[in-house]
């Protein structure tokens, strides 16, 4: 059972109650998903990017906890109007700060939100077979963490298959 009395701050609570930029974007230029239902956090990110490579709009959907919803909401607000290159520089620490801090067990929620954003950006260029100079080849911290979480979930889910647990 989830028992830790997570002391979410007022900003997280406010964003949980009234998330910004929530919902599917039908005319999205690019869409990316991060997370896994095993740990209970899954985010879909939608970006509308114009010809000048500026993010016109961003939105999200989240199967996740309050921290996940709040950080996703904040990311979509932060990057609105940003050039893609600028949006790439957003880190999970910026996001955690922007929601006024998170309990440490919830850091990964913010990491996942930024991971979804960076995945979307990478996918945008990949689909266009372009690789801008500033876009590091190596995965960013947030992308790696998102991937690590997903891989770990697969391992755990195999371990937990009932037929293997029987005595």
């Amino acid at each position, binding site marked *: 059972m989830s028992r830790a009395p997570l002391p979410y701050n007022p900003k997280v609570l406010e964003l949980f109650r009234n998330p910004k930029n929530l919902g599917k974007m039908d005319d999205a230029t690019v869409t990316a998903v991060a997370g*896994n239902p095993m740990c209970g956090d899954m985010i879909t990110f939608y970006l509308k990017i114009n010809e000048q490579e500026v993010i016109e709009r961003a939105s999200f959907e989240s199967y996740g906890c309050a921290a996940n919803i709040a950080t996703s909401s904040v990311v979509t607000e932060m990057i609105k109007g940003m050039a893609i290159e600028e949006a790439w520089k957003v880190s999970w620490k910026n996001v955690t700060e922007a929601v006024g801090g998170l309990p440490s067990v919830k850091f990964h929620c913010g990491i996942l939100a930024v991971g979804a954003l960076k995945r979307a950006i990478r996918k945008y260029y990949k689909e266009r077979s372009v690789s801008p100079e500033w876009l590091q080849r190596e995965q960013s911290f947030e992308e790696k963490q998102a991937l690590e979480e997903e891989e770990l979930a697969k391992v755990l889910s195999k371990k937990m298959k009932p037929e293997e647990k029987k005595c």
Partner: protein
Amino acid sequence: MVENVRELLKAHEGLEHEVYLDNENSTIVPKEVVDAMLPYYDRRAYGNPTLTHKPGWEAFETIMESAQKTASFLGCSALEEINFTPGETEANNLALIGSTLSMKGKGKKIVISEVEPISILNVTDILQKNGFTIMKIPVDKEGFINLERLGEVVDKETVLVSLSAVNHEIGTIEPIKEALEIVKDRNPETLFHTDASDAYGRILLSVKELNVDLATVSSYKVLGPRGIGVLYVREGVNVEKILEGQIGTQRLWPGVENTPLIVGFTKASELAFKHFEDNVGYMRGLRDRLIDGITGRVSMVNLNGPKGEKRASDNANISFLKCEGEALTIELSLKGVYVSSGSACSRRLLQPSHVLVAIGRKFDEAHGSILMKVTRYHTEEDINYVLEVIPKAVERIRSIVGSTEVKL
């Protein structure tokens, strides 16, 4: 951190109706129980029951009377068989570690089920590290233990079997009598322990009739104060102490007895057993109103655990698909409905409720699960309010999930 919690509490100001249903994790202590305890703090029996003065003798008399009453509620006669401990966790630790210590040299196998409470699972983890083999009996989709498998697993090496009488999360009333017969048939020397915390006050259970060797009961699960519980140890069964210190009236637990808590627990038991059939019938009515109300009003829901007579009278555990549990508990809290969830969201990649995984629920079903337990203090109005709040809360959390695919 505390500032944040203060703000969270502020967000709850002005609630007109509040319904507390998280009785798995803590409960109210009714006024009648608190009133029964109060004199024992400063008016009588506040002495140490092992000492030679009036307040001490009063305490001794009080504790013995409480033990006698508890024995009658548990269906045994000898008050010596009742051992007060500081709670269910401590009683389970004592049962498992204390009995395996006393069975030294008789075998290295312990059998439990996949759906035991954490205080059983975590203790067996320790025992495993100390050379014991732990076998976990699987359960079916409703949480009933596989008796056939139990019969195959118990052998001459098995020193202890521990199976809950009623599952703490999904309310399954387990076939403990049959399980015990199977165990004793395979190996009469194997000790049989049952955590009866969720059975006590909900089903009629006699330890004598069942002939179990050890049984755990928790005070707060019958709306008594926290910090007190019982380990029943059948006469002739040897359990060793697991803590050292000054032994008083409780031969298996050192330290000065907490007389007011013992009194509170006894009072809570009296209230639960006084009109037992009525209490259970009343809770069952509220439980079904809650379960039927939710399944009738909300789409994509599953009841976890059995329906009807084989389910504990207080337990409702429901999975809301496409709805994350932690988010739902917060949403409900803001509306004055207090529940807990089997979601893993409080820790990074902590697995969701092991009970729900054991009955074959998918991860999203486990994450979207809500556990509620009704008490005889709830009213129909309370349940109506919950039924008004839950559909709206689920709808809002589902709107955040949107089209995100959550199947693994």
